């Protein structure tokens, strides 16, 4: 494309160059930065709502016996907490980051399908509004756990299950549209010279994640549609009386569910791969191996789903296959952890807030990964299955894993978004409170799980009392320390020292070549890529 073309096109462009005024800016916007911000705010709101539900759970579990809530409401809390955190907090946060950063990282002026981008965001508040309103319906909100196993979620479900199903359909549509948009942007909108193997790792991990989303979100839509038909139209997909099979539900659900957990962690790998080189002031070690490792993890995620259901009565050959396939995932994951450590090796490291979160990610995610390997051992899983050990495992990979990476990303790119330098004091205070809180909350859960405390119960045997009390204290420390984060972000938007275009000394990438705050429109002319012809 020649420069003449671009100028000609530019003259045809009659849009004004700043954002529209008033509320309509947010309703009608097609700007990737506006939509990215809305995703992030929405995700923060859901994080606080889902977090409050977690605090209800931990408050009830502070002591054995029933103190604060009815067991039925407790079950609604565990269910809604899981659904909101997975679909409302973690996933939209990553989509928001992708919206903000992917076009800027590949030198594109916007997303490939800006109108659809607006749609995919605005579906979300309605989906979650509907889901949250079930709390006020007769019979209460869904109470069958975020995995909604049939027949608990069909024959024995509260009436509100239908609203839950439509909410899941809507979030699915939103995720798929977001994923299609991201794939189209990455494959078609890169600046000339930005070859695939030159893309920042965050872009790579998102490209692979988007493909995972397109592959499995329709399966989730399928499984809830089958539930809908079982409940209302007399089919028997999961009803044994009519010739169906409840175990089938688990197979279809986990065929979606396992790739889903990688959807929530691959973008985190990309974020950490951007932050660690910046603050170690070295290039990322093993870029190509990082790309291949990500792709192998994505591929393996499709053939390990039944490790979630070792206890349903599988043949021995099945247990062995899923056990070894699961353990195989440790290899590409190990490559990644090795590369991050090798990047830091002999680097000139400094420990600003984003780096602290990224380092905590590497350490704590590895702990979560190792407990995952323990769960992958099929014969041992019969002891761990459905205990607090599982809860400890997936919270270690999701909270100090996915959530810490999102925090790291927000602190890392916040100066680029707001144009103000970070308040390091408040950021570090937030980090240490979160780090301590998270470990006090989730580490004891390993022990009570190994001792046999089942998950999803409002009351427990006396011998679990001490560790539960400790975990509850940790949960309140972690929960309340997120208010520091909210305060810090709002302060940063309103005031602070002016940030330079490249506000981190060791940062590399196109996003640091535009001024801070990033102008409303960036890269309307494609940038020059180093090393391109």
């Amino acid at each position: 494309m020649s420069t003449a073309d671009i100028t000609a096109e530019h003259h045809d462009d009659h849009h004004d160059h700043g954002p529209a005024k008033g509320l309509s800016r947010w309703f009608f916007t097609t700007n990737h930065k506006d939509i990215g911000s809305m995703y992030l705010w929405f995700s923060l709101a859901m994080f606080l709502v889902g977090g409050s539900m977690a605090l209800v759970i931990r408050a009830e579990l502070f002591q054995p016996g029933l103190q604060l809530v009815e067991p039925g409401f407790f079950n609604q809390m565990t269910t809604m907490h899981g659904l909101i955190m997975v679909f409302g907090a973690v996933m939209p946060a990553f989509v928001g980051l992708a919206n903000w950063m992917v076009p800027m990282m590949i030198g594109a002026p916007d997303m490939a399908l800006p109108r659809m981008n607006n749609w995919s965001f605005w579906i979300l508040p309605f989906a979650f509004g509907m889901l949250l309103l079930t709390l006020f319906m007769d019979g209460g909100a869904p109470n069958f756990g975020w995995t909604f196993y049939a027949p608990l979620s069909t024959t024995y479900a509260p009436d509100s299950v239908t609203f839950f199903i439509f909410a899941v359909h809507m979030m699915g549509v939103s995720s798929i549209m977001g994923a299609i948009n991201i794939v189209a942007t990455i494959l078609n909108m890169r600046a000339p010279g930005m070859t695939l193997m030159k893309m920042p790792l965050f872009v790579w991990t998102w490209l692979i994640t988007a493909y995972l989303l397109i592959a499995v979100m329709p399966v989730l839509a399928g499984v809830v549609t089958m539930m809908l038909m079982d409940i209302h139209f007399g089919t028997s997909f999961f009803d044994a009386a009519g010739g169906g099979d409840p175990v089938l539900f688990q197979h279809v659900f986990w065929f979606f569910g396992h790739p889903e957990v990688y959807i929530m962690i691959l973008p985190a790998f990309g974020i950490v791969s951007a932050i660690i080189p910046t603050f170690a002031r070295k290039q990322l070690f093993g870029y190509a191996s990082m790309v291949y490792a990500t792709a192998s993890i994505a591929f393996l995620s499709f053939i390990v789903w039944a490790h979630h259901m070792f206890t349903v009565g599988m043949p021995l050959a099945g247990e062995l296959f899923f056990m070894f396939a699961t353990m195989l995932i440790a290899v590409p994951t190990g490559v990644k952890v090795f590369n991050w450590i090798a990047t830091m090796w002999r680097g000139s490291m400094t420990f600003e807030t984003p780096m602290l979160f990224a380092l905590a990610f590497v350490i704590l995610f590895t702990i979560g990964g190792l407990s995952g390997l323990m769960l992958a051992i099929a014969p041992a899983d019969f002891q761990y299955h459905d205990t607090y050990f599982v809860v400890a495992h997936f919270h270690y990979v999701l909270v100090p894993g996915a959530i810490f990476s999102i925090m790291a990303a927000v602190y890392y790119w916040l100066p680029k978004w707001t144009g103000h330098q970070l308040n390091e004091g408040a950021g570090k205070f937030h980090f240490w409170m979160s780090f301590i809180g998270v470990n006090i909350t989730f580490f004891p859960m390993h022990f009570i799980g190994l001792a046999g405390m089942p998950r999803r119960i409002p009351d427990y045997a006396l011998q679990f009392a001490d560790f539960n009390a400790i975990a509850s204290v940790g949960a309140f420390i972690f929960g309340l320390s997120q208010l520091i984060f909210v305060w810090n972000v709002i302060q940063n938007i309103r005031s602070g020292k002016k940030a330079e275009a490249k506000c981190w000394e060791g940062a590399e990438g196109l996003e640091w070549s535009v001024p801070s705050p990033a102008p409303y429109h960036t890269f309307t002319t494609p940038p020059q890529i180093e090393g391109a012809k």
Partner: protein
Amino acid sequence: MSVAADTKKLVARLVLGTVLMFGFGFAMVPIYNVFCEITGLNGKITRTGESEQPLVVNQDRTVKVRFISVFNEEMPWEFEPMQKVYQVNPGQMQQTAFVATNPTANNMVAQAIPSVSPSEAAQYLQKVNCFCFDRQPLDAGATAEMPMVFFIDPEIPEHLDSITLSYTLFDITDQQQVAEAKNDNNDKRSTL
């Protein structure tokens, strides 16, 4: 401009992928059933019908066959195996029965769903005749003996020396009535 055209093509392909994966979710239902049939996974499917070859009874060993009855929570019937445990020689034909009572004041219809444990044994348990092949109607207050005839395939491996066969009884009265009503309508239409 070619970027717009490329994007259109790519989006069309991605949408097609989405639709295909939605279909794949549903395709997993028959795939799962076929897979279970081949592997005997989940112990749901056992072989039925008469033996294909004349049976050679293996007198050297016996296999313990245990019967269990399970109720769906909303099923008010009484339902028990006549004899809980049998020691049978592989290849030997064995007849047994379950006794069912309908203690309610309504005529009801039930369907029994079998399950074999360990699932590996499912393919060696052959039912010649079983009440679970049909729907079982029972009048209010009535009691019935529901027979079944089975044998163990002499090919059964050594390590399988104990098999449990459980039946879960489901109340399908409502579905049955709906189906009958539909049939009645069809009949009426055909007579008109």
